[in-house]
């Protein structure tokens, strides 16, 4: 009997209303669009799941929805078996103790007016930890991400990019979360620093057995870190598979186009064109080289094609 998943995302959709402002917002784009459409995904205990896709694919929104920073308009989200789909902020605060988020830009995620030490100690102060113990735990957290002790007295603007991301990770770990969403956490870092941070993520994951949802546009990064990878296109998860399998035998035409960008001689992928979300039919059909008649009729259902390999395609390769 398999363990119940830590995070269970069931058929979640997120609708955003477009803001109407000025003359233009009035009749331009449709008043709402689905940033996430019918996403189903699980993250098991100790598992690292990658969420890859291009900008605008909805991967960041899905990550934030799982953390319930965004409320889904349809579907359900279960965290450790408990439905959190429509909890209010007050109730969420209890859940958030076990979840954390690491941002793309660490500088923006740390309050410029607070020292690193103060930022790390803030959640401890809330839970009434005595001052002396706070200091010890801050020091321990810094050590875990391999920052010197004195970093506690520094302010964010005094740290370099790599140090900042370490500090941000240390803060995310302060409340011993069981699940961390990392949103493009290494994409802004310099090449020579990125590998340090990627290794650090891997070490922390193995040491603390934390589950991760690792959002990235970089397929190499996803392969390096993740056990399973989900591919998103225009709000839909089109394929989920164990990382090695996905990179060896991608089946969705979009996954194939994406992977083809990895090697230079890759096959030609079509121009990206605007997608009408509300029209019936597969979301990818306009660009798809394997389009068949059925693709115009309905978006393909997500089916398990092999153990752990989910696919939404009428005519997979």
């Amino acid at each position, binding site marked *: 009997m398999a363990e119940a998943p830590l995070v269970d995302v069931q058929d979640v959709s997120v609708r955003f209303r477009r803001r109407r402002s000025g003359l233009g917002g009035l009749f331009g784009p449709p008043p709402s669009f689905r940033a996430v459409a019918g996403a189903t995904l699980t993250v098991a205990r100790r598992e690292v799941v990658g969420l890859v896709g291009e900008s605008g694919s909805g991967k960041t929104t899905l990550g934030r929805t799982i*953390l319930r*920073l965004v409320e889904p308009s349809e579907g359900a989200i279960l965290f450790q078996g408990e439905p959190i789909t429509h909890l209010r*902020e007050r109730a969420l*605060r209890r859940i*958030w*103790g076990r*979840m*954390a*988020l690491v*941002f793309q*830009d660490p500088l*923006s*995620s*740390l*309050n*410029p*007016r607070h020292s690193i030490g103060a930022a790390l100690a*803030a*959640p401890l102060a*809330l*839970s009434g930890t005595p001052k002396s113990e706070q200091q010890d735990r801050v020091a321990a957290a810094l050590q875990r991400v*391999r*920052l*010197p002790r*004195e*970093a506690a007295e*520094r*302010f964010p*603007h*005094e*740290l370099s990019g*790599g*140090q900042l991301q*370490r500090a*941000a990770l240390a*803060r995310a770990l*302060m*409340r011993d979360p069981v699940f961390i969403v990392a949103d493009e956490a290494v994409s802004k870092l310099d090449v020579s620093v990125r590998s*340090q941070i990627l290794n650090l993520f891997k070490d922390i994951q193995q040491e603390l057995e934390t589950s991760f949802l690792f959002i990235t546009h970089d397929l190499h990064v996803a392969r390096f870190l993740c056990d399973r990878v989900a591919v998103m296109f225009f709000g839909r998860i089109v394929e989920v598979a164990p990382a090695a399998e996905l990179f060896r035998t991608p089946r969705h035409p979009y996954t194939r186009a994406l992977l083809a960008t990895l090697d230079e001689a890759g096959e030609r992928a079509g121009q990206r064109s605007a997608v009408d979300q509300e029209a019936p039919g597969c979301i990818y059909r306009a660009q798809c080289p394997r389009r068949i008649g059925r693709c115009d009729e309905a978006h393909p259902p997500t089916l398990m094609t092999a153990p752990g390999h989910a696919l939404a395609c009428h005519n997979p390769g």
Partner: protein
Amino acid sequence: MSAAAAIPRSARRRGPLGVLARNRVAQCGAFILVSTLLLIAGIVLFSPYDPNDKDYMAILQPPSLEHPFGTDSFGQDVLTRVAHGARISLLVSVGGLVLGGLAGTVLGMTAGYRGGWLDAVITRIVELLYSFPTYVLALCLMLLLGYGASSVALAIGLVYVPNFARLARSMTAQAKAENYVTAARLMGQSAPRILAREILPNIAAPLLVQFSAGLGFGIIMEAGLSFVGLGVQPPTPSLGVMMADGKDYFQNGPWVLTLTGLSVAWIILGLNLLGDGLRDALDPRLRDR
């Protein structure tokens, strides 16, 4: 492990005091203000004349060593009266700005952070207040409250509520979308705590700049209201009252109005320079140019 190498400390100090240490314009403004305030205090304490001492032997005397700013139609020493008047005007303006600043900031931060219907309601009220010409709003309030220094302060406060509210609202809404606020929410902090601890320190600087610029305008407003006779009432010597008085014998004794106004402009210039310096140094877009 070289990731654990020493992290150098940034030498530059931040915050208003740090700005004062390196911004020439702000220094200039601060110098004008401090020296003028000291001068005012000195005159109020040590002037040989009382602001209301009438000397009918020395009516409308042009500036001299004895009376550096001359005397008015009652033979009162204009410089002494300007010092006392400046004290009143400053008090009125500071009082008004503190009231307006507090109310506006609270309203704006609430609207910006909460959003939704509360934001819509507050925004409408603020927009409405902002649509009244300054003196029109003040006049209505003066009629309601009766003339006098405290009413003027209230009127200045009311006029300035929308300025602070708009600023605080937009900056709070911006800050709310910032990652550090999201991070604080995820760390379990409550809304009031986030507003006070995370957001306020980050938006305080522009509010401070607004406050300093507003002080100058508050003085002008007090002067304007008192000038048309609907503000501070004689014999209380506010700058506006003195200017109103001075205009009556402008042709015979132009120095009363001219020098009083010049003093007003001088104080406001100090405030504006200080505000400008603060803004330039605190606005990241204008920094490092």
